[in-house]
């Protein structure tokens, strides 16, 4: 940035003169944001809003205002799959609970059919 552009920037910031030119940067900023603006408004937005207003009318009677509810963070996503270790642990707990209910344990095919629950049932 040359001295003249520094002076031009300063003059612009204090309210004198034209804005400093960087056409290419300006063009790219506008282009990037405009491209993003091509994203369509989600369909059904108006219907959801109308329903929200209708619901608000209902809850008004109870002294509540949906609008007054502040925006909140989206909930953390719940894992939809279990890892192998988690699955094995869940199976183990499930088998153990089943055994508790029935009074006997189911041998797990791993470890050659020997597992703590099986041993426990065998001892008893």
């Amino acid at each position, binding site marked *: 940035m040359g001295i003249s552009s520094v002076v031009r*920037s300063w003059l*612009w*910031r*204090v*309210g004198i003169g034209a804005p*400093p030119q*960087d056409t*290419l*940067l*300006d*063009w*790219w*900023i*506008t*282009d*990037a*944001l*405009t*491209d*993003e*603006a*091509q*994203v*369509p*408004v*989600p369909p059904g*937005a*108006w219907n*959801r*809003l*109308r329903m*929200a*207003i209708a619901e*608000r009318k209902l809850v008004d009677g109870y002294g509540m*205002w*949906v*609008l007054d509810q*502040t*925006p*909140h*963070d*989206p909930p953390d996503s719940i894992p939809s799959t279990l890892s192998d270790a988690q699955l094995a642990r869940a199976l183990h707990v499930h088998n153990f609970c089943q055994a508790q209910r029935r009074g006997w344990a189911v041998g797990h095919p791993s470890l050659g059919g020997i597992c703590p629950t099986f041993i426990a049932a065998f001892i008893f």
Partner: protein
Amino acid sequence: MPETTLSPTDGELIQRLQNADLDALGQLFERHRARVYRTALAIVRDPAVAEDILQDCFLKVYVNAKRIDPSRPLAPWLYRVTVNLSYTWLSRRKGHRAPFDDAIDQVISPMRHAPDRLAEQTETRQKVRRAIGDLSLDQRVVVVLYYLNGLGLQDIAEILDLPVGTVKSRLYYARENLRGTLGANTSWLSEGAHGYL
């Protein structure tokens, strides 16, 4: 003599809304939804949150209709509410980062399969968008209002309730930061822009 049907002005629709005419709100929503949604999306960088802000913004129009002056333009008021709601949401979500580019890519997915040149341009846009996303919130808001919505400095100052000098300053430093983030020399921008300018 044929009757000319002129679409009602924002002021007329606000007056109808003040008499609890929900259709008037529908027309205002149709007219302004794009600018509200896109402004919110550019600031919060999350399509789902942008939609929530769109809803909240027009709920505010509905609830505050009686306090809105029909003789004044509605758009600046909508921008102000949109920016305020975006600030609120982002301040509550401090520390988290939204996967903005992923979200945008999902919506504009055909671009992923575009020919090389288009793909290159898409990549450049992503770089610029990411750099805009890395700006401080104050600077990002000014950049979005100035470049995306094409608002003047005076308009932005009124929307944000700031002196014009502050808006100029934020815009100036935003551009300096973008120039710094995108590279001291912006030769890659020139290469990317080749053939498009």
